[in-house]
Structure formats: structure tokens, C-alpha cells
């Protein structure tokens, strides 16, 4: 047995069964994650300590000794075995394609966005990677979004889901009581999500639901708006990008195996770890508006905001969505099996998100300057086909449909578009088609200076690295 193998086995054993025994001075320890944390023990830590642990995980360059790599598993978000055969340890398309979360989410800092070079190839290698190329029939190439304010995003989505489902329940009850069909509008936080028709028999016609999944869960993450929670996205990404498999998704309960990816490592990331990394992401600073010190540019941005509204850009890029509570509980209420759920018997962790920079309305709601309605829209047409540049629908969503981009931070996160292939804000606005055609036409009808003012306004929506207090 080679020395390398012996060291690997030794460290592997340490990571498997005796994490607690890891000495500080273990010579040659090449693990990126030297300690894990149990969900049940989170209550013993301060929020600062949990965030520090989560940030460590987010920034960690996972190594084989951490369980990185998945020689026998694909990037699929549910357990799928890879076809037998030799596969590369790292693979730019089908993954694992990065060492750390922060390897891509790094501009202007950890948790930020990424430029074109760190695009990912979503859906590549879900079953078979051998003949995949960069051609769009094999994957959807996506840019790296920033995660600033993402805790607030998830909280908004949770409240909207609750509102929509309450409307549904009430309408069903009404139909049953009256023994007659009922039609009801689906509105949450002032956003219209179409209509439900409930038959006299209580069955619900979902065909007129608009811009949200028909289970009425607002899924606010990814450009498509198809992921429910930071936790769910993190679990998916840990496997797809790093080959770090959580027991929540790939554990024995679901796979009858404690090492589904057959890399020789078990329990690669714990539920407590996933809570910590979710809380870290939820805690990343809320984007802010930073007006230029230059008086001309500052005034232009202020006027640009009004012009932005005049062009009805804010019809989808809704400036503020009201939020009742800043208390972020993890796990979230809409997680499905495969992600820790409140019903799973583990204690939830409560984290109050900072109100810094947020204003409140008369009802005490926090106004979240997200510049999105968290709704999906058709965004391309034959006149403006650019955004329909994918070939694979994702999670039932057609290729011309995307969630309204959250424009907070857009001034810091060039390039633009879901593929990160548009270098200027002006261009990306002009690519809007579909449901955004009317707004684009208004934009095009403006003077050159007015259009520039809108761009100047968008440039003022910045990410900040200021410390969260």
C-alpha cells in the first residue's frame, strides 16, 4: 500500500468516525473541513459562530478527503448512479466543476456573483455524460447570481406561498360549501399569479395559474425560479459542483447506501452544516442603492428611477415587496423530502435577519428593495429571441420563461442575462421581449439621455461588503 493511500485511509477514517478527535496539529491534514456540526447542537452556538461555520463551508475548497467527487453518481438532484466506466474527477460541464462555492460566487466577495468564465451547465450529466458537449441540447448554460439578501428573498417567497395556499384553501372550502364552482384570483403581496377554478366536486383546475408552480409554492431561486430554499439549492449544488453528498438527500434512508457516490467517504456534509451554510447565505448583506458622489450622475440616477417606473419596468421588477417578519427559521416550511423539514424532528434554528437599510410601511411591513415580483414571465419572442437561447426546459418551465431578475445589486454584477453573455445594461434591456415587449418599446421610445438615466439608476443598485451588524 502506498504512503498516499495510507494517509488517505487514515484521514478518511478520521472524517468518518472521529471528527471530534481531530487534533489541531494533525500533520499533512489536507481536508478543507475539519469539523462538522450537528443540527441538534446549533442551539449551543451563537449566530456569529454559526455564520462563521457556514462561511467557512462556503469558502472551503473541498478536497477528496472531505468527500469531494462523485465517481459513481451523477449531478442529478435526486440519487442517480452514473453509468459504469472511467470518468474524470472534475469535469467542466457535468461536474464536479468547482472546488468551492466561493470559486464562482466571488464578486465583489464571497457570496457575490460571477462573470462568464464561471458559468455552469445546468442539467448536464443527469444520467449520462459521455457524449455531452457544450451544445445547448445537453445543458443550459447559466451565469452565477449573487446571494446578497437571499435570506430576505426566501422569507418573501415563504410568505407569498402561504398567502397563495390560503387563498386556495378558502376557495376550495367555498366550493364545497356552496356545491358550486368557484373562480378566484391568486394574489400575493400585490402580485397576480393568475386564477384558480375549483369545481363543485372540489377538484382544482390549475391551468390558469400564472408564473408560479401549480403547488403554489413560490420558488425564488435560480434564474427560472425553481428552487424553494437556500438549503435545497445548496444540497443540489454541493453534489453537482463539488460531489459533496448530504445524507439528507443521498443517505441510507433514500439509497440504502452510506456512500452512494462510492468515493470512500460517508456523511460528507451534515444537516447542521447545511443549516449553517444556509444561514450564512441568508445573512449576506442586503444590496443597497449607492448614488454617485458626482452630482450630475447622482441626479441622473434619481431621475432614472422615475423613468424606470414610467417605462413600466417596475411592473415586473417590483421595487419593494413587503415582508412581515425578518425571522429566518431553518429548515424552511416548504422543503420537501430530501431536504431537512420542520417535521423531521430536528430542532429548527431561528436567525433574525438584519433590518439595516430597510424601511417599513405604515403597517409595519419591511420593504424589501428586491426589484422583482418573484414571478415567472415569458421574456422572449420572435422579435427578441435572445433570452430563448436554451434548449432544455427546466423543472417544467418553458425555455422562454424566467423569473423576473432581482435587480438589487445589478450595478455590481455584470455581465447580465441568465447566461451572463450580455456585457451592458443597455443591451440587456433591449433584449427584453414577450411580456416585457411593451416596456421595452417604451424604453426604446425614450430619448437617448432618458435611456442613459435609467442605466445610471440601475448602476446605483449595488452590492456592498459592509459588515452586517
Amino acid at each position: 500500500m502506498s504512503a498516499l493511500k495510507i494517509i488517505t485511509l487514515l484521514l478518511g477514517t478520521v472524517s468518518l468516525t472521529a471528527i471530534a478527535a481531530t487534533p489541531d496539529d494533525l500533520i499533512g491534514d489536507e481536508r478543507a473541513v475539519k469539523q462538522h456540526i450537528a443540527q441538534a447542537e446549533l442551539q449551543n452556538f451563537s449566530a456569529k459562530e454559526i455564520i462563521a461555520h457556514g462561511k467557512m463551508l462556503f469558502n472551503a475548497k473541498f478536497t477528496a478527503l472531505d468527500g469531494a467527487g462523485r465517481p459513481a453518481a451523477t449531478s442529478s438532484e435526486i440519487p442517480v448512479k452514473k453509468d459504469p466506466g472511467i470518468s474524470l474527477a472534475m469535469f467542466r460541464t457535468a461536474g464536479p466543476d468547482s472546488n468551492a462555492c466561493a470559486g464562482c460566487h466571488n464578486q465583489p466577495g464571497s457570496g457575490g456573483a460571477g462573470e462568464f468564465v464561471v458559468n455552469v451547465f445546468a442539467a448536464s450529466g443527469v444520467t449520462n455524460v459521455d457524449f455531452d458537449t457544450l451544445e445547448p441540447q445537453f445543458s443550459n448554460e447559466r451565469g452565477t447570481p449573487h446571494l446578497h439578501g437571499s435570506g430576505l428573498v426566501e422569507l418573501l417567497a415563504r410568505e407569498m406561498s402561504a398567502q397563495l395556499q390560503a387563498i386556495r384553501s378558502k376557495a376550495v372550502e367555498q366550493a364545497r360549501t356552496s356545491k358550486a364552482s368557484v373562480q378566484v384570483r391568486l394574489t400575493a403581496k400585490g402580485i397576480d399569479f393568475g386564477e384558480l377554478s375549483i369545481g363543485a366536486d372540489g377538484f382544482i383546475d390549475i391551468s390558469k395559474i400564472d408564473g408560479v408552480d401549480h403547488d403554489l409554492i413560490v420558488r425564488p431561486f435560480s434564474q427560472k425560479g425553481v428552487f424553494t430554499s437556500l438549503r435545497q439549492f445548496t444540497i443540489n449544488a454541493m453534489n453537482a459542483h463539488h460531489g459533496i453528498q448530504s445524507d439528507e438527500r443521498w443517505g441510507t434512508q433514500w439509497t440504502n447506501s452510506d456512500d452512494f457516490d462510492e468515493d470512500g467517504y460517508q456523511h460528507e456534509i451534515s444537516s447542521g452544516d447545511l443549516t449553517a451554510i444556509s444561514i450564512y447565505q441568508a445573512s449576506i448583506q442586503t444590496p443597497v442603492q449607492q448614488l454617485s458622489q458626482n452630482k450630475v450622475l447622482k441626479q441622473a440616477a434619481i431621475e432614472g428611477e422615475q423613468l424606470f417606473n414610467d417605462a413600466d419596468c417596475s411592473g415586473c421588477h417590483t421595487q419593494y415587496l413587503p415582508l412581515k417578519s425578518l425571522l429566518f427559521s431553518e429548515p424552511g416550511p416548504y422543503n420537501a423530502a430530501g431536504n431537512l423539514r420542520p417535521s423531521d424532528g430536528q430542532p429548527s434554528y431561528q436567525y433574525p435577519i438584519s433590518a439595516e437599510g430597510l424601511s417599513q410601511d405604515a403597517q409595519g411591513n419591511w420593504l424589501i428593495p428586491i426589484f422583482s415580483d418573484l414571478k415567472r414571465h415569458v421574456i422572449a419572442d420572435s422579435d427578441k429571441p435572445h433570452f430563448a437561447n436554451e434548449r432544455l426546459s427546466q423543472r417544467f418551465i418553458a425555455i422562454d420563461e424566467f423569473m423576473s431578475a432581482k435587480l438589487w445589486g445589478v450595478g455590481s454584477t455584470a455581465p447580465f442575462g441568465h447566461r451572463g453573455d450580455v456585457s451592458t445594461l443597455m443591451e440587456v434591456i433591449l433584449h427584453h421581449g414577450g411580456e416585457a415587449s411593451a416596456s421595452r418599446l417604451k424604453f426604446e421610445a425614450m430619448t437617448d439621455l432618458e435611456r442613459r438615466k435609467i442605466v445610471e439608476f440601475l448602476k446605483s443598485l449595488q452590492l456592498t461588503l459592509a459588515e452586517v451588524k
Partner: protein
Amino acid sequence: MNRLKKLLLMSALLTVTSYALAIESPQMREETATSGISHQYTGGWEYFVGGGVAAFDCNDDQYPELYFAGGASSAALYINQSALGQPLKFSKKSNSNLALDAVTGAYPLDIDNDGILDLVVLRLGENMLFKGTGNCQFENANKEWGFDGGNAWTTAFAATWEGKSTKPSLAFGNYVDRSQAGSPFGTCHDTDFYRPNERGQYSQNTPLTPGYCALSLLFTDWNRSGQPSLKIANDRQYYRGEGQEQLWKIPQGKPPVRYTVEEGWHRQRIWGMGIAAADLTGDGKPDYYITSMADNKLSTLASQDGSARFKDIARVSGVTAHRPFTGNAVLPSTGWHAQFDDVNNDSFIDLYVVKGNVEAMSDFATLDPNNLFLGTPEGKFIESAERSDMLSFHRGRGGSLVDLNLDGLLDVVVVNRKQDSQIWRNLGAGSADKSAAMGNWLALKIVQSGSNRNAIGAFIEVRVADRTQSREVTVGGGHAGDKAHWHHFGIGVAERAVARVQWPDGEWSPWIRLFANQHARISRDKSTADTWLPFASAKGLTQ
């Protein structure tokens, strides 16, 4: 060492020790005593067999009622009074004309296509077709539908819609013909096969001869030819000579014909008691578990040429269940009702086998616990009844895995001979009396207009990532009872799935998009499913 590190080190130990060790078994809580169900299947030799339970909704709240065969005692219809996800509650319906004696089993189906389930009641003596009229009221429709219930000892049933027939064809499996000289040995009764005439009347019986003491029947499209055959589990205890398991071709408009050795059929002699079907191999074709006395079989199609040649994979799959899995008994087991369904919603179908000594057969185990086999990703099964806290040594007969409180977890009902019927609430990952979800699930209804509204004979496919679960929609099988309720699919960690239906006439639906943990109805000619929310509680009967 700083505080954070110390705490991390402590928690790491917990992390390591808190991981699950295997496929997770659901926690079952027996609620017989508090359920309101008090029922036994009783009687002498004629009731050594039978003892089925039918699970179906008869008051339009989707909470399934339970109709228990009683043998020498009166059969009983229990109305579901449960609340969503809560303890199981039932009340016995009084003054029901279903409260008959000599009932061995029952099967629910919509015979007259009015959207209300009817009930076929099997008896020692005249079988009866009951027309459901709503609010759990039933009318004897033998006369209206031109059906002569006969006087046989009926122990099995199955139904199929042939072609565009407005009513189903009905097969009644009969046990020993007590009127023959030399009974019971070598005097098995034929299976009766009724096709509706052009007026929808069951005036003509086509006996399927020879009969070999059938204890379970199932119309099933074993080779996906589009034309179901009739599979019969026969009890070798009483047949003689050429007796064996049977598979009958049912060509439309022509007399049924048995599959022969020339067509690949191999003679198999077991104490066939019950049939369960599910596609275990992923080829889209049903595989069959046939209960027996010790030699339970799991039959999968072995031929590549379309012939009816099956092989047994019970041993490699871990479901021989040939002797009690606990205790010191080495005597063989006696299996009765069997049913495939996913009780832990991990997407790998499970198998429940109800067991119990015939009466006092000393060569067979007296304490013979029911098996709960949990399916694994490797296609094998792991015994889990004890881990699920549902060990029972009662003398079991019929049973059902059915979601009685509409929480997405399949509960369990078992009919016992001369002992109380039992009912378990599936608590999933919960404990004590609080349930908790396990894997994700779908509960599907499929409907079409005209005749055969519930699309008996259809296949439902549910696809998640690289796996497709295929389920044939049938009426029959099990032991003397069946359920007509939501088609339940566990989908594990998938948050969504697509489903399609091959309707009985062979036409495929488009792939229908579904999100997890919902009840949904797939209607023919509609490309989206209608979802459904459970009532907060069962609504009981209108007075």
C-alpha cells in the same frame, strides 16, 4: 482550544451517531382498540379461506370506508370518521343491506359507470352485485343487471372491461364444489366468467373449465399486448390430477382459452392464496407475487419471445417469506393477502403479506406474523414489520394498504380469522402518536368519460429522473378483497414527477406534470392534472 472548536468537536460526535442506518421503516401504531372497528371473520371449514376487506369511498369525501367480510358472522361496513392525518376512527353503519352473512370477500368498482362505486360481494352461496347510490347506500342489483349469483363457494373475483363494452366482464373464482361426490378432494369448482350482453345484462356464464379451487383472480396484461389475461392462483390442497396455477387468454368476443405448455406456460403447483402485482424489474410489465403455504412465488416474465414463460425470483429478491421471521418456529408459513405499495414513500415499492395458520394445521407455523417487506434500490426487500412496530401473530386473511386519513402515508388493515381485525396508522417518520412525513408522494386518480370511468386496465407510469414506476390499474387480486382509491406512488426525494397513462384502449396520454405531496386527478383529454385538497375530516353520512 477556543469555545467554537470545543462545541464543534462535541457536536461532531452527535453528527456521527445520529445518522440512519438503513432504509427507513415507517412507524406503525396499532389503533384497533380506539378505531371503533370491532370485527372478526368467523365460521367453520367453509371460512378457513376468504376473509377479505374492501376499501373504498362511498360518501364522496375520499376518506375510504372499510367493508369487512364476516364469514359466519355478519359482514360490516365501517364509515370513515377520521380527520386529516389524525388517529383512525370508524363507525359501523347500522341498517346496511351489506350486513350479510356468509360473506367471504368484496371488491369495489363502478359497474354502471355512474361515478359511484358499486360493490361485488362474494359469498358462500349467492354472490351479489350491489349498486352504489351515494351516501353509502347500496341496492341489490342482481336482478337489474341480470346476474344470477349462483350457489357456489366463491372466494375470488376480478373484473375487466373488454373493448368498448359498457359494463365489465366479471370473473368469480370458486373453491370446492361441495355437491360433488368425494368432496372436497379433487372436486374443485370452475371459475365463472360473465360477459355483459348488448343490454348490459349478465345473463350468460361461461365456466372456465377446469377449475382448480381458485383463491385469487386477476385480469392483467402481463405482456402489454393490450389484451388482459386472467391469472388464477389455485389451492393445491384440494385439486388433483392436472391441477395447477392458470393463465387464461381472454380474446374479445371469443371463449377464454388456457395458456399451454406450447405457449411457454409451465405447470406450477402451489397453495395459491393471493396475488399482488407490480412492475419490479422496470420493464413496464407486471411481476406477480403469489402467496402460498411456504412456497410463495415472485414471478417475472422470463421469455423474450412473447411466450408466457415466467421464472421465480422470490429467493433473489428476499421475499420467500417461507417461515416466520421472528421467534423460534421453523415450521412453514401460510400466506394469504399480498399487496405491493410504497409505505415509506421512498419510491421503492414495498410488499405486505398477511399470514396465518389455516386453522390448526400442525405442520405449519401457528404463530405466523405478517410480513412488511421494504423495497430497496437494489430491487430486493428487507423485512421490517418488527421495526415498524406492527408485529402481529393473529391468524390473518385479508388486508389492505390504504391511506385512511389522507396524509400521504398508507395505513394498514388486516382481517383475522376468529380474532379481531386490526388497523394500524402509519406515523411515517413520527413516533408515539404524532405522524411525520417520510418521502414525497403522489396520489393519483385517473378518469375517462363514458364506460369504464376509472380506466380499469390502464397503466400509469410515474417518472422521476432515470426511473419509471409502472402500475396496472386492476380490480381483483389480493385475498378476497381490494381497494378502489387513490393510486399511491412514493417518489422519494423528488419534488416533482411526470406521469402518463396508457388508457385501456392503448392510447397514451401526454406526460402530465405533477408536484409532490398532492392528490391529483388525471382526466383523459386534459393535459394538466386537477389537484385536490383533503377535507379536514371525513364527513360521515347524511342523515
